């Protein structure tokens, strides 16, 4: 088989030899920076997204100090904040309410739009999908590059906004109008304006990416790769791409309108008679704040499934590989993913039960919300049953994939009381909501992303990651994730608002009065767990870079003995991916076939 070349060596792109007319670009700039190769772009997406993931964590870690010890100067970092952002934001190293609001809004924005989606869709989708369908690259490589650079530019705009006068956007990641328009009237180009311009770039990036993904999956499947022979991961990315394609444009429309409200003084989202700081706002009025919420959540809810579907895809791949048996109910998984994709477009207003939009509309969205839990439960159940009777290999990717199942289960089930309009009255805008969606995204999606990194790292680099430190990373992350998010349900049930910069201290009742007594104590514990969760990522960061240069080299192109096509390429795959056009003869999960000499039959093995 092809030699496993050193990842940094210049021979990488030419490892397949000189047979191809597209031998790959030469020169560092064109090969690694402005590359049109889907694998390089995938890695670019991945590294950028990991940096943003760390940054998003950092904002939260600072906010957790303010929640645990409101009004006290932040040790070490307080001085840095003061120097970087000035006394308006961090006077004497104390986080001001404005800065807390900024960090809150940007934590959400960065985590969703700049970290998790680019990692799940941009990085894994780009790297793995063309390999799994047996394609030499994406359908439109230049558009693929443009997609990454739009994302990069959007990220830069978001980062710059921290340092402009007035600071970054501070109206929540949802940017509700009219708050978003009037939050910083002192500055014409305020953080919100930067946020909107950054979002337009990110939406452009996701549009270019999703068109490319769908066209690639439709057009570039290898010979014999029928629709029901696609690995579940490809199906998940396919549905995700449709969600991005169709759900993001309404937010772009809303963003354009809010930009006009902010810069040109229109009144799309500003109602008649709006009074700000005791004075009527000099605008024409007649706009509708509800309109913004409808348009935002028309993206916002499908976006939840953009976060979770690729994660489910990764988990399905890792589970099938490490249980050494076919996934249970492959077709049910595929149809459920399609059903989720469809239903996710008609559930958005369950975020708006308390806006007074009317009980009839609430009832409709409550019904659709309960309906969408059905395919989600089918997927989770099928994945659980896939474990049954398997001879399971407990390696690091498998541990993360296994942990995904109960973590996503908790996240999903705690969503049901929020989906009922009656119980939502109590829970809305409390820490219960924070606990719920973080269980879906943090120990859910992010664990699946870790599983994916450990699983595909040997294919991308030709070296294995360290197994021992991988397990340390897993165990510590698992413990601290739960210590962070489980108590939040209790806080929410006690009625702690998710928006208070002092962790609810001003609402706390006096001695002997039932109030937020427990919630306030939990704040301190959660903060310490959150900081330790950061420490738990150190082994991962070291492992990632150490293994890149010092990890044990893979001895085979297929170290996990997997069935899907990405393992049929040289390691790491050269420009053009395959040494010859692959032909597919069987389904994606032919593990442990009776009478077979090995316990796995790759898709390109003749039947």
């Amino acid at each position: 088989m092809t030699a496993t070349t050193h990842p940094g060596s210049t021979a990488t792109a030419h490892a397949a030899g000189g047979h191809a007319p597209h031998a790959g670009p030469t020169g560092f700039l064109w090969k690694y920076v402005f590359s049109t190769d889907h694998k390089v772009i995938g890695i670019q997406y991945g590294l950028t997204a990991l940096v943003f993931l760390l940054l998003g964590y950092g904002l939260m870690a600072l906010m957790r100090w303010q929640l645990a010890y409101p009004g006290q100067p932040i040790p070490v970092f307080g001085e840095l904040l003061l120097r970087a952002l000035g006394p308006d934001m961090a006077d004497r190293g104390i986080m001001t309410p404005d800065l807390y609001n900024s960090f809150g809004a940007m934590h959400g924005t960065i985590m969703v739009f700049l970290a998790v989606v680019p990692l799940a869709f941009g990085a894994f989708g780009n790297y793995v999908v063309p390999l799994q369908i047996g394609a030499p690259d994406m359908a439109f490589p230049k558009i693929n590059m443009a997609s990454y650079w739009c994302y990069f530019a959007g990220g830069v705009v978001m980062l710059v906004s921290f340092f402009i006068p007035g600071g970054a956007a501070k109206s929540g990641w949802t940017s509700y109008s009219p708050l978003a328009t009037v939050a910083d009237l002192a500055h014409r180009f305020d953080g919100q304006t930067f946020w909107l311009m950054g979002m337009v770039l990110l939406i452009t990036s996701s549009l270019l990416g999703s068109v490319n993904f769908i066209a690639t999956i439709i057009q570039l499947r290898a010979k014999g790769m029928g629709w029901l022979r696609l690995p579940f991961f490809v199906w998940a990315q396919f549905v995700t791409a449709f969600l991005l394609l169709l759900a993001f444009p309404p937010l772009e429309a809303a963003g354009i309108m809010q930009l006009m409200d902010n810069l040109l003084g229109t009144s799309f989202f500003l109602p008649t008679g709006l009074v700000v700081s005791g004075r009527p706002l000099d605008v024409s009025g007649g706009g509708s704040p509800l309109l913004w919420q409808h348009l935002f959540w028309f993206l916002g809810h499908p976006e939840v499934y953009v976060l979770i579907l690729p994660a489910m895809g990764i988990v399905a791949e890792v589970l099938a590989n490490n249980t050494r048996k076919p996934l249970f109910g492959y077709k049910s998984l595929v149809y459920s993913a399609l059903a989720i994709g469809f239903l996710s477009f008609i559930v958005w207003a369950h975020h708006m039960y308390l806006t007074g939009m009317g009980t009839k509309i609430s009832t409709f969205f409550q019904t659709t919300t309960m309906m969408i839990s059905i395919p989600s439960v089918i997927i989770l159940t099928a994945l659980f049953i896939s474990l049954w009777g398997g001879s399971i290999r407990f390696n690091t990717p498998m541990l993360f994939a296994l942990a995904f199942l109960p973590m996503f289960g908790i996240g999903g089930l705690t969503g049901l009381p929020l989906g009922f309009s009656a119980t939502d009255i109590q829970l809305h805008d409390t820490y219960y909501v924070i606990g719920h969606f973080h269980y879906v995204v943090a120990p859910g999606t992010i664990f699946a992303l870790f599983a994916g990194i450990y699983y595909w790292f040997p294919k991308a680099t030709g070296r294995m990651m360290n197994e021992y430190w991988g397990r340390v990373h897993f165990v510590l992350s698992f413990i601290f994730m739960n210590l962070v998010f489980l108590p939040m349900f209790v806080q929410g049930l006690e009625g702690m608002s998710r928006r208070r910069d002092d962790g609810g201290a001003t609402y706390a009742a006096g001695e002997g009065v039932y109030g937020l007594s427990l919630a306030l104590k939990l704040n301190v514990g959660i903060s310490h767990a959150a900081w330790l969760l950061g420490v738990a990522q150190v082994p991962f960061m070291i492992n990632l870079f150490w293994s890149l240069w010092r990890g044990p080299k893979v001895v085979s192109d297929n170290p996990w003995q997997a069935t899907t096509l990405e393992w049929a390429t040289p390691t790491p795959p050269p420009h053009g991916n395959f040494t010859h056009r692959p032909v597919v003869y069987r389904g994606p999960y032919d593990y442990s076939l009776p009478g077979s000499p090995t316990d796995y039959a790759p898709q390109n093995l003749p039947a």
Partner: protein
Amino acid sequence: MDIPHTVEARPDTGLYNAKVGIWLFLASEVMLFGALFSSYILLRVGAEAWPHGLLSVPIGTFNTVVLITSSITVVLAWASLKLGDLSRFKLYQGCTVLLALTFVAVKSFEYRDKFTHYYVRLQDGTELNGHLAGNPLNWTAANLADTNRVGASITFHPDAAGGEGEGAHGGHAEPIELTAANVAKLESWGPWRSTYLAIYFTLTGLHALHVIGGALVIAYLWGPGSRMWRSDPERFTNRVEVCGLFWHFVDLVWIFLFPVLYLL
């Protein structure tokens, strides 16, 4: 390895890659304009009053004819390539570009008309709409103060009564002199004037950007891009077809915009 189906169609889908791509892109565009049209409906349903007759129907009709004609020439241009006739392609596609420029020129004339039309509220509470002498573009009370500072005032000609105006006598009301002292508010009929104008400028502005973008691509394929005809005629024809599909979409959006903004 080359990427398959960049030019020749994939047998089971019957499409080449770019055609799949453009249809997906157009699906996303439908959602973009769909969201803005939905916003229009929601704003209008919630409005106390919705203005009528702010735009000239004959001008709008003229622009509609211009765009429909350009949709025809764009098809004829593509058909000429299919028949192997590059010079006819150049003729038709040249017409498309000229028609697009005509559309944008007419549209900018309409825009200018709005930015030289003013609303003024005097200190005694009188509200008037009309034109300033010399038709300055997009003035505010600040420009008025600057004029006063050099010792001049500006004459305001209120609109003829009957339309949006208040008076019932017909004909132009008496011109009045505006100074910073007697004016409480002065603004042109830009997007800030009302939610109707806001959605009008947003929808037509976004549409105009699409027209300009499409025209740029068509002009490129008419000019330097047409060199590909000699090296790879099939691929060039595909390019023309794909940008033609986009052009039809831009046309279709206008077919919805015209009744919604001018007629209803």
